[in-house]
């Protein structure tokens, strides 16, 4: 267990816990951001530079800000009074059960045991990603482009819809 990994994992998980537990929504989102940055750093550690930076660019630069806007637009800037969770214990129990299940699977997996401890850094050139995207995966790429367009239009329409009638 590498100390740098330990720190990163700790920050990531801790921030995630905080994000899910804090009362103030803005704080939650900020913690989520921290957690996502931590994840990006984990990607970097795994050698996926591109994925890491894309993660930061998209999540910190766009998704986090987007969520912030949503928070402010739904007047969630202030810490809500009263209950913040529904039947927390049963939910937590289910989540814990799921975790236990996954962890058990990881621990028992024979495939994982056979894997190299720390294989050599695989080459990850952006050019290769680009070739892949415009080669084999050009159809998914176009589908994603379509999806993003649809999401853009859909988002605008959904968020606007009731304004017209009011």
């Amino acid at each position: 267990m590498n100390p740098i990994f330990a720190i990163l994992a700790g920050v990531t998980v801790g921030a995630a816990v905080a994000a899910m537990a804090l009362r103030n929504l803005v704080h939650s989102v900020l913690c989520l951001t921290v957690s996502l940055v931590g994840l990006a750093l984990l990607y970097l550690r795994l050698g996926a530079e591109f994925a890491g930076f894309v993660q930061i660019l998209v999540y910190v630069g766009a998704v986090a800000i987007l969520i912030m806007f949503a928070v402010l637009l739904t007047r969630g800037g202030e810490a809500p009074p009263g209950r913040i969770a529904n039947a927390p214990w049963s939910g937590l129990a289910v989540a814990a059960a799921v975790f236990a299940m996954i962890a058990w699977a990881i621990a028992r997996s024979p495939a994982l045991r056979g894997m190299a401890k720390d294989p050599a850094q695989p080459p990850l050139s952006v050019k290769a990603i680009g070739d892949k995207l415009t080669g084999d995966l050009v159809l998914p790429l176009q589908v994603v482009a379509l999806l993003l367009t649809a999401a853009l239009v859909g988002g605008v329409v959904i968020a606007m819809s009731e304004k017209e009638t009011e």
Partner: protein
Amino acid sequence: MASLDQIFVALKDWLVAFVPVALQPLAGALLSIVAIMAVFPGIFALTTVVERKLLARFQNRPGPNRVGIPLTKIRLAGFGQFAADGIKSLTKEDIVPRNADRIVHFVAPFVLVAPAFLSLSVVPVGRNMAALDFRETGLLFFFAVGAATELSVFMAGWSSRNKYSLLGAMRGIAQMLSYELPLILSSLVVVMMAGTLSLATIAERQSGVQWGVVHSWHVFTPWGFAGFLIFLTAACAESNRTPFDLPEAESELVAGYFTEYSGFKFALFFLGEYLGMFAISGVAITLFLGGWNAPFTFLDWVPSWMWFFGKLVGFILFFIWLRATLPRLRVDQLMDLAWKFMLPMSLVNLVVAGVWHLAASWPHLLRWPLCVAILALPYWLLSRGFQTRFKTRTYRFAEESRPAPATAAAGP
């Protein structure tokens, strides 16, 4: 001359050689950090004074000209002013509003400054002189790190619990998000043509020679020229410089999202903004203006870092000149400009780059007019729409005088 060119590299290698081999990477990193932490804040300090003085000259007044070296009579034409300002900001009372979210309020300036330094670290300031050289993802790193700016703006604006701050933050984020698209798309053109995301490689690629004596800067191509203009405009907006300084428009929003900051934290914001400006200028230089390359082959003897910093100074002066010259835009105009002009233009520019690439074997006489035509036509069409849009101004709220229908309240 090569020795002068590589003097800092040699210096660093020499210094690193003193530490044990195991610690050499760390030492090298530290040295780079120190260099960046020293050089750019230094430029920042000088810039504040130069800006004040130049703005004053633009406005026919002397500007700061008193402060020199303390305790002496040497005035240095007021260039000691930055020291005075720095001391003042460090010693001023740090006021935090009572309602403020203290932690976020405290963290925000650091979230702004740290990425600014990080993004400066990937800019190659001279031949072999980039602190961090991501061979694969340099530019992506720059944009990823730059994304944190928006977060810090939000944090600052929201945590202050002040409507001016919040409005300023909202405006700032909207503006940055909007202009980030043309910014990235216009730099994507360079990535397409250079085939790499590494800023150092991009700079190196521009050391070729064309037309006999001119280095092949990207700005000397149709797509490069158009991309440069788009990038420059978007960079202006990204760094909240006039005419895009709405988030901190003093006359409307007091000081925008850092209204509630004072003392050292305010200074940090100030520093962060300027560092961001330097970084984006550095990237612009690297992407379009040949990086550390000389413009002409016969000027190659000047050291590469001098070219870079010379260009950077040029950029700074240009921004100051802009600030003194242009009026501020209105919010709707700002958004229109981003979405209805710059975004389409940068998309068209992508096409132009593609055409340019595919037409590599054609004679210049065919290739140039074709690309220019592809650019000029949308430019003409898109800007035609603007001329009318900029002229008339409608006040929407003034028209909504009729009462809202009563049934709206009775709805579910």
